[in-house]
């Protein structure tokens, strides 16, 4: 497996006045990797993406793209970079072809290579028949595709997409996700999103950023392996007490979701589930639902972003009282 590091972010912080939007964030992205950048609104995702793409400068720390520092060698670094910001940077009074031509020229492509690159990029984004149309007249979904097309027109090593599926219909979302997966084969892709299933389907690795700090950096398959397989949600018509369930051998943790539902995690080597179902049948608890917990990303996300906020609130309250 190719282990070439395409993006390297080291101890980056960014202040707006006294407000710290990004606080000491470090990570790397390798070729062939799709990195999901998650976080609640206002967590610093967009700021981080703008710093990586050279639109903003970090207050401290360094960013390098394909080995080139974005501050010391901005031209070489940015030549390897395609960026789709949250708001696609479109000149609405140009046609798609004119716009892509300008984007290619800005990226320093030679005139001879541009027509082929435009065709290729349009084909990848499903814009084959839209070349002569004014961007102003395109629907939001198509404008978004034009935004992606400009980001990949010069075949950059690194593609950064800030909420690329925002405002698209389900079919378009699926196409764009396929495209991102495809890009992930030979590029390094950073994708920011707040749609967790999206991150789950397209990303290899996720970062969760919260209040400017990196709170999680984990490969998705590892996240699944560690937490998902031995956790289920279970519901009874006549639920036993939580203590009763906890006494079953092999149970790690039992947590009550509502009157009838529990989330249980257990040691996969034990027969905890068998024993639980036997006991339920025996004692007529009325087991009617058992769902393997696959949504761990969401749980992790909520735990890391809301849990900490509550802690902070609590701390603030303590200080206030």
């Amino acid at each position, binding site marked *: 497996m190719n282990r070439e590091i395409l993006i390297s972010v080291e101890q980056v912080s960014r202040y707006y006045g006294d407000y710290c939007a990004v606080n000491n964030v470090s990570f790397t992205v390798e070729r062939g990797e799709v990195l999901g950048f998650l976080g609640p609104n206002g967590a610093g995702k967009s700021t981080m993406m703008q710093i990586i793409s050279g639109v903003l400068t970090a207050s401290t720390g360094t960013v390098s793209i394909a080995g080139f520092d974005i501050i010391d060698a901005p*031209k070489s670094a940015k030549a390897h*970079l395609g960026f789709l910001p949250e708001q696609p*940077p479109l000149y609405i009074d140009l046609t798609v072809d004119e716009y892509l031509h300008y984007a290619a*020229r800005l990226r320093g492509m030679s005139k001879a290579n541009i027509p082929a690159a435009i065709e290729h990029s349009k084909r990848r984004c499903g814009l084959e028949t839209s070349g002569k149309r004014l961007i102003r007249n395109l629907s939001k979904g198509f404008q978004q595709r034009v935004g992606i097309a400009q980001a990949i027109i010069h075949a950059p090593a690194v593609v950064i997409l800030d909420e690329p599926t925002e405002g698209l219909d389900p079919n378009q979302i699926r196409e764009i996700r396929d495209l991102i997966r495809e890009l992930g084969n030979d590029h390094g892709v950073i994708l920011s999103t707040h749609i967790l299933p999206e991150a789950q389907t397209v990303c290899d690795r996720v970062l969760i950023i919260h209040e400017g700090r990196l709170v999680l950096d984990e490969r998705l398959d590892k996240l699944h392996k560690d937490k998902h397989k031995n956790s289920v949600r279970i519901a009874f018509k006549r639920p036993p007490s939580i203590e009763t369930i906890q006494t079953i051998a092999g149970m790690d943790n039992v947590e009550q979701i509502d009157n009838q539902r529990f989330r249980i995690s257990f040691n996969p080597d034990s027969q905890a589930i068998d024993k639980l179902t036997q006991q339920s049948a025996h004692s007529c608890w009325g087991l009617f639902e058992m769902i393997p917990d696959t949504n761990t990303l969401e749980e992790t996300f909520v735990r890391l972003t809301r849990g900490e906020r509550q802690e902070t609130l609590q701390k603030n309250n303590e200080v206030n009282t």
Partner: protein
Amino acid sequence: MNSIMPIAMHELRRMFKSPLAWIILAVVQFLLAIFFLILLSQFMNPAPWFAGHGLTEIVVAGLLQIAGIVLLLITPFITMHLFSEERRTGTITLLFSSPITITELVLGKYFGTVCFLLIILMLIALMPLSLLLGTQLDLGQLGAGLLGLMLLMSSFAAIGLFISTLTSQTSVAAITTFGILFLLWILNLAGGTGSETFRAIFTYLSLLNHYNNLIDGMFNSVDVIYYLIISITFIILSIWRLDGERLHQ
């Protein structure tokens, strides 16, 4: 530096995509044509105080004098969108994330604007040049005057460019630019009441004063350098401003 051309050409092409450029060309040409005809009829039926003044002095210098004022009113509308609009629509991120330097970006936009102003200049120049069909002109004075107008427009463009880096509202950029241009234009009036040195400084700083020398046919390198310094200063300020923005935005 090879990104300057694509940016300049893009700027020029986009101007003609909007009706604004065409309307500006039409309005400037129409207004100046009226003044041209008035000046011409004045020359044909000379009033006593015109006695002894030639065609170039009355018609060409008069036309260029008016052209300077019309362009002072019009240039803010040309420069207002340069960076303000890019910022408002978010296209500035495309420019900032592309492998171009801020200097290339600013120069590209500046040259694109100057190209458009040169088109206006050429159309204006056609009017006095049409007189060559029937009579003779002092081509030296015409040349100096056109050079003066070009330098004047270039400094207007540089000032407008700088103002447009300061705001994302095009109308704010236009009005501020207009205010500053007008102030620089009438600066010599401010010196009228002050002491001798005071007046000398203000007269020297006025955009109008240096322009008048050139349309009167006096080619003085000081006047040329004055306009070049204005243009270069505001271009550098724009570069600083945009560079600083990435750090302190």
